[in-house]
């Protein structure tokens, strides 16, 4: 019988990366921002990111925060660039309906802050699915 040579469960090692000082702070910040549980976000990241991307999360988060090339206020507030390009938690297809919805809420006369908060919660739901 030939054993599988290399493939190994990486969850433990990935978790070790995520709980180190700075990574932990950034993950907590993102979790608070998207209104999901920290463990839920960690699980999502462990499933979807490779280890190198996980190591780079803090640097990418900072680069994403600095980037202000995006002009549309709603998309920027929702972190369109941040969460699709810099920290690829979502695909474009997942975030666009949320942006449309939030823009509709704003057009209906809801205060912008309130609408953004609802939008972020919707994004958080995508993660916990």
């Amino acid at each position: 019988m030939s054993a599988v040579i290399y493939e190994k469960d990486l969850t433990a090692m990935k978790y070790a990366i995520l709980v180190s000082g700075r990574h932990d702070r950034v993950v907590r910040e993102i979790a608070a921002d998207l209104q999901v549980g920290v463990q839920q976000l960690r699980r999502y990241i462990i499933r979807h990111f490779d280890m190198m991307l996980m190591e780079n999360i803090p640097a990418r988060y900072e680069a994403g925060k600095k980037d202000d090339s995006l002009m549309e206020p709603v998309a920027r507030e929702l972190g369109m660039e941040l969460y699709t390009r810099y920290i690829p938690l979502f695909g474009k297809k997942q975030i666009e309906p949320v942006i449309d919805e939030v823009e509709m809420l704003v057009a209906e006369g809801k205060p912008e802050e309130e609408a953004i908060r609802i939008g972020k919660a919707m994004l958080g739901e995508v993660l916990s699915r």
Partner: protein
Amino acid sequence: MKKTVDVSIPLGPIHPCFKEPARVKCETKGEFVTGAEVELGYMKKGIERIMKGRPWQEVMFLAERVCGICSVIHNMVFIEALEKMSGIEVPERAALLRVVVNELDRMQSHTLANFSYCYTIEHETLGMYLLDMREKVMDLLELITGARVTCAYIVPGGVRFDLREEDRESLLASLDAIETDVRRYMGMFEGGSLIGLRSRDIGILSKEAALEAHAVGPTARASGMPEIDRRLQHPTYQKLQFTPVSRDGCDNFSRIMIRFDELLQSIELIRRCSALLPEGPVRGGGIPGAGEIVYCGEAPRGELTYFIKTDDAGRILDISIQTPSIMNIEACCHYMLKDAASIADVPSTFVSADPCIACTER
């Protein structure tokens, strides 16, 4: 990421071209590489966890052993962070000697990176020339600090040993010899037509991608971003009128050539330091105290950041280290390796970003 691909070709963890264990999983379509993932975990020692709660005298040596190739800069950034936090003054002579040692360290690191690249594209002759030149630089490092790799030369308030006059002369004489060598090897690399075929227009990292992955150091400077150099913010380098170099080829060839450029630049900086070197003490003394700081320095591979929090006795309460390799390897595996024309280009592209797995995982 769970994905279904045609063929996933793993390289490593033990690979003749990689100095350190890392596993690059390439998703391929025939020979064409569509994407790559890096699997780590072979070097995770948990240095940041060990550092917590220890006095700075111990952490200083641990910081140096984050990376064995660029140990001087880890030492320098950690100590300078403590100095800035506690307001310790450094004598002029010591500050210049720090730059000398740091630039020598940068030289040996860049030579090693270029050796690895030449070795990977199977140009062993040039590789061996470079490795021989590196030994000369290591000799100079040993002459000044007393050790080849982990020298712990920089201490709070100064440096450990003074540079004697006869050592300074032999340093300058060796630098002249090294400069002739560098120019010769640079010509060989630039003019080699087969090297050009293996290196030009391979492993493209565009400026946008470099910004996105927050690439730093020579990797970013080869994509036309000179302003990324943290030495511009360092007071001693400002005094030396340091100006960074850059190239805009964005490919493997530029990344190697920029390291050659920086070798020459480092030699020039050391000469300037030696000309400015005033008489005086090299150790001012001083004891680190309580504080919290974020301090950056330019390692051979790019921007190195220490986040330090200490208590009154100088014990480290909280520390995180962001090493340049993290950003560079990430940029390498997610942007440069994408759309590589052949699997044979994958090791050479990976090595051209000068990966240091020990730094990355700590």
